[in-house]
């Protein structure tokens, strides 16, 4: 088997990570006690709270691994892992900054110009500047290379963008979209050529943000329409024509974190509060065993990032196994308790079940469907 491409070295123990973990726990307990937030399922999509994001920025928990000259804190991926998993386990409102901190910032660090980095990264690290992912389009979901949003140079060297992006989480509360555009005509012989990434200020004239409501009525997704939007020429991210390569690297960050198995953790915590009979304890044990294995997989990826690796195939595998787990949790819990799922339930477990269920179809779609991910894993097995 191509085990070398699937399996990573065990994660090193990190005393620094355990130290910052304790600090985050203390912070979260105080915030919960003060009523600054209430726990919810899937808060990295739905929990937009700029004030909370700024508090994290003040404490140095955003942009943690970035160089200090860009507002970062030069800490390890293992420390960042500890912070993010504590925030997710608490169901804290982290959606405002999540994309910017997780992937847009690292993308800028890797491919951005000095001006782009200096201008934007410190604001992300402060919890003040938020990003959306401009990849999918109405006619391009899993087949990302088929996007049609195009950017052409005008006489001033600026880009004129036309097209539309969808599933742009929280575009209505964000500042920038890293937008994948076609900068040269599609080449049937090389579908991945001619794509570029643009750093698009969402306040530019010609941009319209239309809400798309998800199953529980929540407004997180949007359609972002570009109508002759003039994007300054210096807002190209990375190389013209290298968009596919850059997007692939970005996806390794997007796919590897603890949010790929902890989206429904608040439901598990609520279930634990009433697990008492042997069958319920066994259900909690089964759920926990799966979670513990996923944690080890995800920690291994954090360790690999610290070694400077870009483990895209293991990340695809973790996301496949992890997001399957997130949805399975709902039915494990349902079979162990007599609590109907309802957003109006007087029982917090009933509400958590309802939130988790209504968000569930998204877990195995966002960031690459599990079918796409399994294709990537199959490539790691040497099958394609």
């Amino acid at each position, binding site marked *: *088997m*191509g*085990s070398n491409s*699937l*399996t990573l070295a*065990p994660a090193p123990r990190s005393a620094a990570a355990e130290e910052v*973990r304790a600090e985050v*726990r203390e912070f979260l307990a105080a915030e919960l006690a003060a009523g600054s937030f209430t726990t919810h399922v899937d808060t990295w999509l739905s929990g937009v709270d700029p004030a909370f994001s700024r508090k994290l920025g003040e404490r140095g928990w955003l942009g943690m691994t970035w160089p200090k000259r860009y507002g970062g804190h030069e800490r390890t991926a293992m420390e960042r892992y500890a912070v993010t*998993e504590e925030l997710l*386990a*608490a169901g804290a409102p982290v959606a405002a900054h999540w994309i910017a901190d997780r992937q847009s910032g690292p993308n800028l660090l890797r491919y951005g110009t000095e001006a782009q980095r200096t201008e934007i990264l410190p604001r992300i690290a402060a919890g003040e500047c938020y990003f959306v992912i401009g990849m999918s389009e109405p006619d391009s979901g899993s087949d990302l290379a088929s996007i049609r949003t195009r950017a052409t140079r005008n006489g001033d060297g600026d880009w004129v963008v036309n097209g539309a992006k969808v599933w742009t989480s929280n575009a209505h509360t964000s500042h920038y979209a890293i937008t994948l555009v076609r900068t040269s005509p599609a080449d049937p012989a090389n579908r991945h050529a001619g794509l570029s990434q643009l750093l698009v200020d969402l306040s530019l004239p010609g941009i319209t943000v239309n809400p798309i409501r998800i199953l529980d009525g929540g407004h997180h997704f949007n359609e972002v329409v570009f109508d002759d939007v003039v994007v300054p020429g210096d807002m190209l991210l990375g190389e013209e024509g290298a968009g596919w390569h850059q997007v692939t690297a970005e996806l390794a960050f997007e796919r590897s974190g603890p949010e790929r198995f902890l989206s429904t*953790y608040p439901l*598990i*915590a609520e279930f*634990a*509060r*009433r*697990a008492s009979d*042997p069958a*319920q*304890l*066994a*259900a*909690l*044990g*089964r759920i*926990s*065993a*799966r*979670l*513990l*294995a*996923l*944690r*080890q*997989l995800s920690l*291994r990826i954090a360790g690999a990032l610290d070694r400077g690796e870009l483990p895209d195939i*293991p990340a695809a*595998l973790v996301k*496949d*196994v992890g997001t*399957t787990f997130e949805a399975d949790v709902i039915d494990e819990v349902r079979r162990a308790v007599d609590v109907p799922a309802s957003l109006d339930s007087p029982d917090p477990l009933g509400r958590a079940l309802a939130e988790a269920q209504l968000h569930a179809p998204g877990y195995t779609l966002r960031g690459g469907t599990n*079918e796409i*991910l*399994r*294709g990537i*894993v*199959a490539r*790691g*097995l*040497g*099958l*394609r």
Partner: protein
Amino acid sequence: MTSSDVDLVVETVRDILTGHEPFVLTPERPWDAGLWSALAEAGLTGVGVPEEAGGSGGELADAVAIVGALAAGAAAVPVAEQLLVAAPAVLAADLDLPAPEEPLSIAVDGAVTAEPRDDGDGPGSWTLTGTATDVAWAGVAQHLAVLATSPVGPVLALVHVAGREVTAAANLAGEPRGSYVLQGVTAPGALLTGAQAEQLRARYALARAVQLSAALQQVLAWTVQYAGERQQFGRPLGRFQAIQMELAEMAGEVTAVAALVDAAVQAVERGESLVLAAAASKVRAGAAVEVVARLAHQVHGAIGFTQEHRLHHLTRRCWSWRDEAGTETAWARVLGAGLLGDGPDALWPALTRVV
């Protein structure tokens, strides 16, 4: 032997295995005695036991590597029981360890009571009565470490079982899992604390999880290989997207099990509490068997459903190992209850402490 020798140890085991293909176990031929002799001659049945105790030295990691390599090779020898469970327990109880070439197994099930023949304080002599059930390698083992109950607490006794009558039984792979009736048998033994007895059971569960992890990795490798070789509709099975999805799902399960089991073994090496890590490993590995064995057989088609093909040597073992040394359900209850030890609101801190 040092832990840097792990790769060398595994290579040695694999070399030995090439001369000992797995076979269908029967009551007449219930184990691979020739393989055992070869392993014993190479000193591999004493790994993890200090040289001054008659062993070959080496660390837990070496013993784990040997057990994994032998599990992947469907080796019909009591190495997991001896190296990972019985020998460490006998040593920890300060009992005299039998020679490493004499197979030593472990019995934690059934109802065996121990009465002290002397003052019962520390290592001493005990009278054992009752039936040890589900004994791995019953009839093959020459010595048996028996976890018994006594009026003063759990006792680990070491019984010489060579030649003793066995009520034969086998697991789904034909591995001996018989019973011994013990009527007033005198044996050396030592009192354990309740926690030590629980650790012993957990070590047994972790040993099975180590075997499962290695076997599942091998099943995946065989299935990927078969999908690359078997041609249908003019191309290899592995070219079909439907098959790729199944193999990727298997890989996800196998990789998750390995990550957790590896972490649990490392936690044991660091001397951390073993029970919840072992419980989680056993539950996770057992759960993976359902998916991995089912899809492996599905991809192999009818030939994999025969004794002519090698696949059953591992899938039948996996179907049994997941139930042995404590079922998934039993360990899931232990894990669920253990994680709530600090109260119903403290699940998350408990989870982050397990491994």
